[in-house]
């Protein structure tokens, strides 16, 4: 039975890792990181239950605390990054690469199509947010 909880914790951890490594949206990346922490908390609580002491749970409380602090700082940084480039795309930030390496373009493949917005009476059908050109990214100063 203990093994089951540990299994769930491991699955959550791995899923969080997959999400962190795969998604391009900074928010979703962060959510995946939080999910990894959830898996670890589950592990801790399971062992705390097995050894019948409070230590695991207390450590989980600390994980909770730190997760909250981390979320605050991370979101502040994400907001700052968004102010710079006007986008939540993490692939835009490649300035620390080797000088003669070419920039990696993640949009080489065509993106999945999104269903057209419903034909409701709207004033300005904005549609799907288009790809930002480089000039726009450079000149975007705020949202």
């Amino acid at each position, binding site marked *: 039975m203990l093994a089951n909880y*540990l*299994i769930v914790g491991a699955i959550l*951890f*791995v899923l969080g890792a*997959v999400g962190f490594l795969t998604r391009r949206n900074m928010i979703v990346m962060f959510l995946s990181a939080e*999910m990894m922490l959830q898996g670890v908390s589950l592990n801790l609580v399971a062992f705390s239950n097995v050894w019948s002491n409070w230590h695991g749970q207390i450590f989980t409380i600390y994980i909770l605390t730190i997760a909250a602090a981390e979320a*605050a700082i991370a979101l502040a940084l994400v907001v700052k990054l968004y102010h710079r480039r006007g986008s939540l795309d993490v692939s835009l930030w490649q300035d620390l690469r080797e000088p003669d390496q070419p920039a990696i373009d993640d949009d080489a493949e065509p993106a999945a199509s999104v269903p057209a917005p419903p034909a409701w009476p709207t004033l300005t059908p904005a549609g799907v*947010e288009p790809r930002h050109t480089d000039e726009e990214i450079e000149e975007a100063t705020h949202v």
Partner: protein
Amino acid sequence: MSGAMQALIVAIAISGGLGVFLLMPRAATGTRPAGLALAGLSLALLVVAWCANFGEGDLPAGLVFCLLAALTVVAGVMTVTRRSPVSCALWFASVVIGTSGLFMLQNAQFLAAATIIVYAGAIIVMFLFVVMLAQQSGVSFYDRTPREPALAIISAGILLVLLLSVIVSTHHGESASVRPIAGEPSVSKTAFMSSDAAGQHVAGLGRSLFADHWLSLEIAGAVLLVAMVGAIAIAARKERA
């Protein structure tokens, strides 16, 4: 650990990996049903594995466990593979709910409540605010293409196989019941497991927190203060002259 269990673990990992891979937002359409099917297969195998790990007398608890755990895992997969970040956040809330349910099953009632309050109530709300600010259109182009899912999922799958194999082989058949640690001041079972007297549980937790881990508590408080100040300092907009 028997070979069947090992095979089961590998099957779980493979089918789950393939399913997640197919469920990722991608340009090609029509992979969604296949992905769902594979993910479902993986979930079924997982349930089988859980059942294999049950001891005697665990059946009622086992049923509840299976439900909550399945919810958690499904919500986790959904979090990672949805297109819209708002959907991801809401599915993450489901993950949190499932996790706190599991906490509840393990005599961590305070933690269950605290998890829901802090995560679902505060952190996810913050995320949603930022998403609303930054991405009014909902689904942007960078949400629709993952970045190198193949290599990530393969390595994560191998990691999963390793982890599961280690877990199952070491803790196979162990019960999740209480086992005292030799040499520690024994906490009475009743004191630990009493869930009727809610005050005792939280009181016990608090007593242990302030008695055994007071230094970490102070540090945690300082960290929170610093994080608050830091967040404001970082995110503050410079005044335009």
